[in-house]
Structure formats: structure tokens, C-alpha cells
């Protein structure tokens, strides 16, 4: 176990918290720097300490430390500031032997770090103790990330179906759902499930060949292969996998050559009954300019959407995280957090870490009352970005067209009403994360109607500035919420503001229909 202990013997720290903080910061850095610089420079960095005195990072080599400090200090500071509220001086420590100790498990160099530190260790549950290290290495080599395992996935009503499908696929790859296709907006657990399937398969069948890549990595490998005239090894690698996990397949959109290559890879694996699992931020049919034959193949198996977690699930997720990371945060505090932060799981984790960090820094447990204050900015961010529900949109549109909201749901098709309905569909599509099918069922239509409406409205917006500005006006009112511009009619039509928390539950309802 101690082989994974970070080389900071003089500073006992709560590593799970730090690991998670680092994961979050990594995500931000990835966004601000781009994937390839991030992977090139930061992938093997660790966080060894973060306190008011400063931040200590452990670099995999002196050169990495120097180059990161010289070239990426500003984005680092802003990422830490975002997550911790402030950022002390950043210091780099180097552990040249760390990477060596990671790769050769019997390496005697690892002895240097055997100055034990029992408190640390992220719970890693593996069945065969003997081969734990080997599996870990294999998993890492396959591109799997350790923290994303089934054991620490918290299923809830929002992800029940996805969770069941993931387990079925891990138990019986290639037999149940081919392919398995997850889609959801970001931060809801697609990637976690993909990695989880990988780890679980590996545990059950240590010999199987598993590959986890993002579609972008796949693309880069492909381009690389073309350039080096080495398509054969590239194809061999992907086409001989037993389990191929591909994240962010929406990246395939608009890339014809890549799609062609992927199509063949897909067919080959499917023919041999090897399992393919895909994740995307939208359903296959909505990926931009994805070839019809790929769309149909993606739809072959099972497509599952992961919804936003409801209140209880959010609380369960955070309690689980708290226990995993051994944070001293009370249930009440967690309840306060989940009441406020309704965004994705990453936002939730960020809020929890913030709260725990503040507690650690101030050296006293945080009171439920103080939570709102501590996470105030996170909470605004999340609130601002997602607010509007289908019913709200319908109401706003009906107000604008001065018709009754029920007419929008009805069957009347006079020009004015049809237009209002189409505008409403268009707005629901652009302002919410609902899938086409969900939008369709919210309006009692089929999804073809929605596609048609969205297309038509887009076209009209392009053609007519006046139309566009009236749509924008509705949009602005919606996003701003109860602005003083609201007409008296709106007040009459608004019984009470819609329960925002019901989001996950509502989606589920729709799913059930």
C-alpha cells in the first residue's frame, strides 16, 4: 500500500480531500489549458498540501516542476483561488522516484517512501489482494482512473437504469447491450460509469484487454498513425480490444475520416461480440453531423440517459463522499449544501470540499448556518446557469403570444398558436438539458415534431431579425426570472414558482410515460 504514499513525509494531510481538490482543479485546468497541454504537463502531479500557508504540489520530475512553474503559474493560481477562495504561495516538491515506484512494483527505490503514513490511502477495493498492484497497473495502462469505480458510485433515481446497465455490461460484456450508450449533461457520472465498467471487468477478468479513450484521444491516435504511416498497429490495438470504452463520442461529429475509421473499428468489435460502451453529452441522433450509419449503430443497443440527481440522491452522494474522504462535516451541513447547489455532481463535490477546507482552516466545525455564506459564489454560479423549466418556458411563451398556456399543450394549429408552440419547443431545447424525446413528451408530440420545430425556428431566427429579437426577449425574461417587466397577466398565470428541486423527479416521470 505504501507504495502510493505521496512523498511528503513531514506533512500529514488528509489526502482524499486533497486528491479530490486536485481532481477538481485538474478539471478546471483541463478546460483552461486544453487537453493536450494538461496531459503533457500535469497528468502526474499531485497535491501534497493546501493550507493558508501555501500549497505544495508534488511533481514527477524537477523539469516538470520548473516548466509548470514557469509556464502555468497563473492558471494554477486562478484555479486554486477559485476552489479555495484564496491561494497562498505554491511550492513544488519533486519526487523523481515516484513515477518509478509506480511502474515497477518491486522497485527497491520505493523503500525510500516506506516511512509509513497510515492515515492516507483512498479506499481501493479489490478482490484479489495478491494481484491488486498488477490490476491497478493494468487498469492505469488501459487509461482507467482509479477513483472512478463502481464501489464509489452512488446510484439514485436519476441514474438507476444507467447503473443497472453498467453492471450488466461489466458482468457479461458483449452479451447484453451492444453498444451501451450513456448520455447526459456534464458532471453527472457518465465517465465514472465508463471507468467503473472497466475496473469491474478487469477485476472479474484480469486477462481481458480493456481500452478507455476519449473520442479525442482516438482521433489523435488516428492522426498520429496516419502521419507515421502506422495504421496497422493502430487498428490492431483498437480492433483487438475486449472492452472498448469511449468517452465524449460527440467529438466524432463533423469528422468524416475519423467516423469512417471508427465505423470499421465498431463493426469489427461488434462482429466479434466484444463490448463497446460509449458516452456522450447528447443522444446519438443529436451529435452534429454524425453519419447515419453510425447513428443507427449507436442506437442498436441500449441508450440510457443519466438525469440530474434529486435532493435525496444529492445528499446520499455527498454523504458518501464525506465518508470516503473522512471529512468532519455533519449531515445538516450536507443538507444545506444540497439544498443550495443543484448543479452537477462536480459542483456538489466542489462545494463540499470548500466547506471542509474552510472548516480545516478555521479549525472549527462549520455550522449549518454558515454554509450558505461559504459556498455563496458556487451557488450563484450554479443557479445562474440552470434555472428554467419546461413549464416556465411554456408560460413565458404563452404570455408573450397572449394565449392561454393550455392552448400550447393542446391540439389547435392556427398559425399563431403553432408558432407559439414551436417557439416554446425551441426554447425548451436551447435552455434545458432535456432530450428530444423528453421535450416531445412534455408537449405531447413526437420527437420528429420537435426536430422540425427547432429547425424551423432556427431558420426563422436567421432570416428575420425581428423574429429573433422577440425570441431573445422571451429568453432574457426567462433567464432573469421574475423581472419587473413581467406583465400582470403573468402574475395571474403563475400560481407559485415551480419547485426547482423537482427536476430530477420530473424527468423520471417523463421517462416513465
Amino acid at each position, binding site marked *: 500500500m505504501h507504495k502510493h504514499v505521496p512523498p511528503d513525509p513531514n506533512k500529514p494531510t488528509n489526502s482524499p480531500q486533497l486528491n479530490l481538490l486536485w481532481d477538481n482543479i485538474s478539471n478546471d485546468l483541463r478546460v483552461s*489549458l*486544453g487537453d*493536450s*497541454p494538461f496531459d*503533457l504537463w500535469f497528468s502526474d502531479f499531485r497535491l501534497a498540501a493546501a493550507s493558508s500557508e501555501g500549497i505544495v504540489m508534488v511533481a514527477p*520530475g*524537477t*523539469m*516538470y516542476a*520548473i*516548466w509548470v*512553474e*514557469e*509556464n502555468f503559474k497563473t*492558471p494554477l493560481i486562478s484555479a486554486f483561488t477559485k476552489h479555495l477562495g484564496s491561494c497562498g504561495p505554491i511550492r513544488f516538491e519533486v519526487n*523523481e522516484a515516484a513515477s518509478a515506484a509506480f511502474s515497477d512494483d518491486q522497485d527497491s527505490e520505493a523503500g525510500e517512501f516506506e516511512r509509513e503514513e497510515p492515515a492516507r490511502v483512498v479506499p481501493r477495493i479489490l478482490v484479489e489482494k495478491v494481484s491488486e498492484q498488477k490490476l491497478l497497473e493494468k487498469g492505469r495502462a488501459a487509461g482507467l482512473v482509479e477513483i472512478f469505480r463502481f464501489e464509489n458510485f452512488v446510484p439514485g433515481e436519476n441514474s438507476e437504469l444507467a447503473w443497472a446497465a453498467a453492471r450488466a455490461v461489466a458482468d457479461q460484456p458483449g452479451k447484453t447491450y451492444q453498444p451501451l450508450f450513456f448520455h447526459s449533461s456534464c458532471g453527472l457520472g457518465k465517465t465514472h460509469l465508463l471507468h467503473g465498467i472497466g475496473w469491474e471487468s478487469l477485476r472479474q477478468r484480469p486477462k481481458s484487454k480493456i481500452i478507455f479513450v476519449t473520442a479525442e484521444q482516438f482521433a489523435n491516435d488516428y*492522426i*498520429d498513425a496516419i*502521419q*507515421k504511416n502506422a495504421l496497422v498497429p493502430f487498428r490492431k490495438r483498437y480492433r483487438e480490444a475486449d472492452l472498448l470504452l469511449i468517452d465524449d463520442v460527440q467529438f466524432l461529429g463533423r469528422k468524416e475520416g475519423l467516423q469512417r475509421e471508427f465505423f470499421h473499428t465498431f463493426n469489427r468489435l461488434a462482429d466479434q461480440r466484444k463490448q463497446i460502451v460509449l458516452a456522450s453529452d447528447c443522444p446519438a441522433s443529436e451529435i452534429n453531423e454524425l453519419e447515419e450509419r453510425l447513428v443507427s449503430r449507436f442506437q442498436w443497443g441500449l441508450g440510457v440517459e443519466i438525469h440530474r440527481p434529486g435532493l435525496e440522491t444529492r445528499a446520499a452522494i455527498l454523504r458518501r463522499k464525506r465518508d470516503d474522504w473522512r471529512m468532519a462535516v455533519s449531515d445538516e451541513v450536507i443538507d444545506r449544501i444540497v439544498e443550495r447547489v443543484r448543479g452537477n455532481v462536480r459542483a456538489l463535490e466542489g462545494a463540499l470540499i470548500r466547506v471542509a477546507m474552510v472548516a480545516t482552516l478555521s479549525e472549527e466545525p462549520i455550522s449549518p448556518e454558515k454554509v450558505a455564506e461559504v459556498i455563496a459564489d458556487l451557488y450563484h454560479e450554479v443557479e445562474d446557469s440552470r434555472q428554467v423549466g419546461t413549464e416556465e418556458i411554456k408560460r413565458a411563451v404563452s404570455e408573450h403570444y397572449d394565449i392561454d398556456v393550455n392552448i400550447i399543450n393542446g391540439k389547435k394549429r392556427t398559425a399563431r398558436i403553432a408558432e407559439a408552440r414551436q417557439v416554446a419547443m425551441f426554447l425548451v431545447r436551447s435552455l434545458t438539458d432535456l432530450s428530444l424525446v423528453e421535450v416531445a413528451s412534455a408537449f405531447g408530440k413526437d420527437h420528429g415534431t420537435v426536430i422540425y420545430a427547432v429547425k424551423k425556428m432556427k431558420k426563422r431566427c436567421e432570416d428575420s431579425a425581428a423574429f429573433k429579437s422577440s425570441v431573445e426577449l422571451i429568453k432574457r425574461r426567462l433567464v432573469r426570472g421574475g423581472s419587473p417587466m413581467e406583465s400582470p397577466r403573468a402574475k395571474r398565470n403563475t400560481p407559485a414558482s415551480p419547485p426547482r428541486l423537482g427536476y430530477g423527479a420530473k424527468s423520471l416521470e417523463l421517462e416513465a410515460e
Partner: protein
Amino acid sequence: MKFQIEKDVFQDALNQVQHVVSSRTTLPILSNVLIRADELGLELSTTDLDVTITKRVAAKVASTGATTLPARRLASIVRELPTNEIDFEVNADNAATVKSGPSFFKILGLPASEFPVIGEFGEAREFTIDQKLLRDALRKTSYAISTDETRYVLNGVNCIIGEGMLTLVATDGRRLAMVEQDLEFPAGNETGVIIPTKAVNELQRLLDVSGELKVAISDNQASFELNGSFLITKLIEGNYPNFRQVIPSQANYRVTVEREVLLAAVRRVSLLANEKTNSIKFAFEDNRLAISANSPEIGEAEEVIDVRYSGPRLVVAFNPEFVMAPLRNLDQDEVFIDLIDESSPGVIKIDEPFLYVIMPMRVAG
């Protein structure tokens, strides 16, 4: 001590040794040059305790002896002397009289015994290399040395001998220059040392385009013997970081460009480089490279040059100084710029064993 020497010879010798002398030193003796006269001629030495240079010159010595005199002052006096023949005499109080035609100078010096003795050179490995080779290699790398004193291991050129190669590397964390020259070394001479900036600069001044030099390396010192000069320097202690970690192993695109054309264009465009970010943009597309700069409050500049490039449009921002530095110090007509993408390090190469890694700058918009 008494001798007669030719002005040109004396002046050259003083010029070569006087750079070591620091103008702001706490020890007055360190601003002096040690002059030692023996039967064979003169030996001039200066030191800053880290680097010591000794130069031998021919002179007609009437009586032997040694003294120290203020180096800079002596050099400027000699430069101005009216005739080519200089008569030099130093009395027991270290007061020197300098006569040249109608001119007469008296300069007060310090006793030679106060001059620091260069530390004993321990067991050393010795070898001989081509002067031009070392000169070129230092010229191609030394500009990338870090000036950040908190990273003292980077304040020099890392010099590795081994595996049939002489490798010289310098980096400051934003760019890295490396020369890797095939060289036959007798087995058992593998070594890696970090030569401090000052010694590198002095050495470059001493190196010629022909001939050889003798190098001796001990644990903490290195000496270089060439053209009648002897330079001895402390080495930077510590391990040079594994620089290969930052050298991209492959590239996706190669741009071929004329060195001087690129250098001139970058120099012009950089006049309007954004002062805040100090970066200029390089847009590669279809055999052309558009170099542009934009300073919100000053103005903008653009220059398009012909290059050989057939990849997709790539826009990369670099610090112009970091692009110009290697270009100035190379001789080849053609340089290659290898790129992976817009945000990964770029590599400048030539047809010879040289490479230069440069980090792109992040630019918004």
C-alpha cells in the same frame, strides 16, 4: 619586477582577463589583475573566486617578481598609451611605473601575496576537443541559460559526455536549447557537469575557430586550456534536471523556413508585441507564415513570409525574443519548426544535431 612589453600584446591579454573582474566587489584585491613575471614572460590572472582566468604573454623580463594592479584602470591606461613599447617597473611597495614614449604613469597596487590562490585541482579527467565544436555548441545553447538565481542548477550549461556524445543543454523553464554532437571519447570518461554562466561567457570569448583545447574535469572544478589561456571554474553543484522530459518525442507538422527571413520578420513585428503578454502570433497555412502583433493601445503589425508548410492552419503565439535567440545564434540558411498543435511545445531544428524547445504562450482570442 621589471619588464618591457608590446602595447598590442599587453592590451589583448588584459582585455581577455578583465571581464572576470567584478566592478562591485567587497574584496579590493578581486578588482586587481595579478601580474607575474618569470624568465619566459608574463602571466596575467584575474578571479572572482568562482572563475579564474590566466593568460600567458611574451615579454622581455629584466627582473622577475609579482604584483597586483587594478585591472580595469590598467587596461584603460594601456589602451591609451601613445607608443607600442611599454616599460614596466614595480617597486617593493607595489607601486608600478608605466612608461611609454612621453607618457608616464604611476599606479598603486596590492601585494601579490594577497591574491587568492586558485584551489587545488583534485583528481581530474582530461581530454582534448576541437575548439570550434565547443564554441559553436556553446553559442547555440548558452542564450537559453536561466538567470533566475533561485534555480541555481539552471544557471549554467549542462555538459554531458558519454555514450559517444557530447551533449550541451541550457534551459530557463520556458525554452530549452540542446546540442548533441557525436564524439569519440575514450571509455571511462563519462561525466556530466554544469558550467556556470560566467565561465561559459568567458570561455566563449577565449575560444577560437580552429585548434584544440584541453579540458580537465574534477568533482567540483573544470579547467580549459587554450591559446595560451587557462580558465578554471567552479562547477555548479547539484543535479541537472532530466531535461529530456520536456522534449517532445514527435511532431505532427514541420515548417521549413529561411532563418534570416524569419529572424528579420520577427524582429520587425516584435516592435509592436503586446507589452502585457509579450507575445506575437505565428499563423501557419499553405506555405505561408503570417507573423502578427497587436498591442491594444499602440497598434498592430503583420508580416507574411513564404515557408514550406502543408498542414492545416495553425496559430501559435510565442515570445518573440525566444524565437529570435536561437535564430541569431545559428548559421544555417534553413531552419525547421516542428509543431504538434497550437498549445504544445514547438521545436526549432536544423540539419545538424541541435534542437530548441519553445513553449507557446496562452493567448485569449
